[in-house]
């Protein structure tokens, strides 16, 4: 690649508001997660292990913070729990939040990687190229969600990670990561590419429902919706639209309405302007009880 090519590509790759000057077209993968439907059962997390060849690091390494769950379920208690004036019991249950890479449009991780191992793709994903990664971990340092996981050890050669037979389960479509590289949720890019390939062969675009992420597919309550935000017929687009959440806004218009909008859609850390591609729907609690 020549220098002129570099500069040209630069302008293409490195833009902040993909919607403004360069619309995502024809694909912008996005997700919405209904926290009111999410029960915190962890099925998505296990499905992610199965689909994406995530290593099981074992107790000791987990204790050292080396767990590799791309999809992690967080459990929050109400702020009033256990503090003076609050209740001693979680009277309203807990709040669960599935947290994975938010595939930010202006991803903080992308700008800081020295080797350009993490980039924005044309369909709005935050790609992570394992074989380009030098392991500076700067992306993780700069990720507000801390959803990037580093291969602290060489898991493929570690005892009891994938012992004989267990390694036959590994998904051949997904690279098994060796030590020293960063990894994170990819929105199951291997499935996306397979679906895109099929669609291209048939001379069409990927239809809504053609492709599901592993977490979406497994979710017993169907809390996860995934699809193409550009496609106006897609469920995810309709959800974003009905929740009045827009991809390239750092403060949603609906939130500025007097007395609230009555809508539940929000994105985490919008104010930091990473423009995440995952919309969450607030958990609802009955006010009558």
């Amino acid at each position, binding site marked *: 690649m020549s220098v002129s090519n570099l500069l040209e590509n630069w302008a293409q790759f490195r833009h902040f508001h993909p919607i403004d000057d360069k619309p995502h077209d024809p694909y912008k993968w996005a997700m919405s997660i209904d926290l009111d439907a999410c029960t915190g059962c962890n099925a998505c997390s296990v499905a992610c292990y199965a689909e994406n060849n995530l290593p099981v690091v074992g107790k000791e390494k987990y204790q050292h913070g080396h767990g590799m769950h791309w999809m992690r379920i967080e459990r929050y208690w109400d702020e009033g729990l256990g503090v003076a004036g609050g209740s001693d019991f979680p009277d309203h249950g807990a709040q669960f939040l599935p947290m994975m890479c938010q595939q930010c449009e202006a991803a903080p991780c992308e700008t800081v990687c020295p080797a350009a191992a993490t980039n924005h793709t044309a369909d709005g994903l935050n790609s992570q190229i*394992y*074989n380009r990664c030098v392991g500076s971990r700067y992306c993780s340092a700069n990720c507000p969600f801390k959803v990037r996981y580093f291969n602290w050890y060489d898991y493929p050669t570690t005892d009891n990670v994938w012992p004989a037979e267990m390694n036959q389960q590994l998904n051949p479509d997904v690279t098994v990561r060796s030590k020293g590289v960063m990894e994170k949720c990819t929105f199951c890019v291997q499935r996306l590419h397979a679906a895109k390939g099929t669609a291209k062969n048939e001379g069409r675009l990927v239809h809504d429902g053609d492709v599901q992420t592993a977490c979406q597919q497994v979710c017993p309550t169907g809390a996860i919706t995934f699809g193409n935000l550009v496609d106006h017929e897609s469920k995810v687009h309709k959800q974003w639209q009905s929740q009045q959440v827009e991809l390239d806004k750092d403060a949603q218009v609906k939130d500025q309405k007097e007395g609230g909008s009555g809508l539940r859609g929000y994105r985490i850390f919008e104010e930091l302007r990473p423009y995440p591609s995952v919309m969450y729907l607030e958990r609802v609690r009955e006010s009558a009880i």
Partner: protein
Amino acid sequence: MHRLLRLSILLMGLSVAVSGYAADAPQPTLTTEDDLGPQVVQPIEFPHDRHAGLRNPGDPLKGGMEIDCMYCHTYARRSAVAGIPPLQKCIGCHQSIETVRNKPRIQELFKYWDAKKPVPWKKVHDLPDFVRFNHERHIKRFVEQQNRPTQEACGYCHGDVKQMTVARRSKALSMGWCANCHQKDHPVTAAGGTPVGNQAYWYGFQKPVADAAGGEYKAPDTNNIKAQGPNDCWQCHK
């Protein structure tokens, strides 16, 4: 100005100029005839030239048989992975070709068949594990959509196999080599090719601007678009 200073300025200028030129120059193509991979020893010395090579009108027993690549390598057009033809395929023809039945290679072949054991072929075009080349997409594009001859399309990466006996890598298959091709502008309506859908646009990372007014998503004018191969790292590295 002092000599030393002048000299150093000269040297610096020169190095800037040279490195600038080097950096801006197109990368040398690494795909000359000389860039051959090592000769691979296979369990059976498979003569590609005999199967796929051109017919010899004078002596049909000497020339090739012009068998299409995809007759044996059928998986390539249906899957990302080309695979190796099942043994069944070889036997399918060879059980009825009595003329060569007693040749040592064929006997070897039948030994495997009788034992119901696969032939342990060595992989000749072995990409690194983190690279995913999609055979299907390339064949769809070049052979099915653009009507290029199979041997030409396959030959982009595999070289002129019809002249080889045991296949040997003759292209670099390095990333720069792949990217070189992906960066070339291929007119979508190339000879014989038909634009399918708005495929032009899937090839490029050049994104046509959507209709600004309606916000509605519009297929670009394919006639003026030159497609490139996808230029997104995740295309091959997943």
